């Protein structure tokens, strides 16, 4: 079942993407095809198979609770277009 254009627009909005009309039509087709394929997979009976969240098994690879020195602040801030008082500076957020 193909996605509606409104659904494509909603998904784009959630991902903060601006799409042209041409892109909306193309992504509608592509996304619909992906969903159709997933729908096909969902027809299989997998009730007796445990879900796979990872192909590695048995160990969570945990870290000891030991703090280590942080990154120098300048190294982080140099990635920002603007900063002030050691903080990232961004335009106001409209609520």
């Amino acid at each position, binding site marked *: 079942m193909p996605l509606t254009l409104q659904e494509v627009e909603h998904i784009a909005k*959630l991902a*903060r993407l601006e799409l042209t009309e041409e892109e909306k039509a193309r992504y509608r087709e592509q996304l619909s095809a992906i969903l159709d394929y997933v729908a096909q997979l969902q027809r299989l009976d997998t009730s007796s198979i445990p879900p796979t*969240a*990872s192909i*590695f098994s*048995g*160990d*969570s*690879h*945990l*870290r*000891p*609770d*030991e*703090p*280590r020195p*942080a*990154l120098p*602040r300048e190294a*982080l*801030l140099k990635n920002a277009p603007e900063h*002030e*008082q*050691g*903080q*990232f*500076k*961004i*335009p*106001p*957020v409209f*609520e």
Partner: protein
Amino acid sequence: MDYEAVIGLETHIQLNTESKIFCACKADSWNAEPNTNICPVCTGMPGVLPVLNRRVVEKGVLLAAAMHAEIQPVSYFDRKNYFYPDLPKGYQISQYDRPLAKGGYLDVPQADGSIRRVTIWKMHMEEDAGKTKNDPLTGTRLIDFNRCGVPLIEMVTGPDLRSADEAANYLIRLRQLLRWIGVSEADMEKGHLRCDANVSVRQKGETILNTKTEIKNVNSIEAVRTAITKEIERQIREYQSGGKVEAWTLEWDEDTQTLKKMRSKETEADYRYFREPDLLPVYLTDEWKVKILETLPELPLERRARFVQEYKLPEYDAELLTSERSLSDYFEATVRAYGGDPKRVSNWLMNDVLRMLNETGQTAAELALTPTYLADIIRFVDAGTVNANTGKSLLQKVNVSGKSPAEIIQAEGLAKVSDDDAIRAVVEQVLAESPKEVESYKNGKTGLMGWFVGQVMKKMQGKADAQKARALLEKHLN
């Protein structure tokens, strides 16, 4: 028409680990300069991998056990996707359908002696976001990522609370429990324990759930109490005037003590949760779980009940002595060292040691006045070696010097003087120096006896046996 409130609380609990949940940055940034506890992982740089902090799981398991929840042998992390400037990755790593624990409850004693059982609907591990603040001068926002990746437990109750006081009591008991089991500092002012409240009202006797509002940003127990009270009143007024309650999100403004309507937020379906592919499932082996649970102490309400049972303490004493774990440990250690009536130990603790704790800001465990020393002092008073006032002044002296009570009594010559001749000499001196009072007394002002005893005590630096002094005074005056 009688209305009742239906309240559920959503809490975020900051765990008191040393490092963050998925990276080795320092977790506690209280008073730290902005962006000084940060690294590529917690600031969402491309190509980095989160690695789970073992202590976060351990503290989460302890809390789950204390809340009587079902601890899950396998749980998963998921991505909760949304855009906000305080969230550098564009998603928060959280848990969704397979969290660390399921179910659970907290029993909350109420002022009337009843117990409200509050069920837990959701309990999971997640990472905190950063902080943004507006700069009104330039009209911009400044972002500090120090808090990004600080470990949290999100815990959501069922709609089980029926008044603002019950909600406040829940938070008081939760805070007590968190500190008791040592998983969080639980300081609401510092944001270690944050609370949002879902509030609706209905006619008494009904079982339906009416439309609820969500109150955000309530950062103290009193703010929770006031904000919920006001919202309950507003909703009742709304229904009584024939209006309806809408599903608003409200923000508590501490300065004006009012609730303000916030923008409606994205619905849950918009978060597009999916499994976090960068993290492995959390496998909690039986062996590890047993090891963690070995460190779970007796819980506060259990200990309170045991104090009443085992030591025959009044409820009031038991409640006060179990308000904090180190105080209750201190009490028990003193009772053991003392060997006498536990109520006597309780009196000394509640009257004098608690005041000392308040004044010095110490915890019971930090006192130089150890349980053994306190027991010594009580026994010295019992045996009449020192009088009660000297005993009380010894508490301070021991705590300041760290010396044993016996040593101080010896060094300062504090032992009670029971020797008749010594007291008689002072009694005679006092009477000789106070002819006017003696005359008044002999003319029937017998109330002066207390004053005479006081004079004798004063001359003997409080060391005299007061009963002996009184007997000798009476003998001389009559």
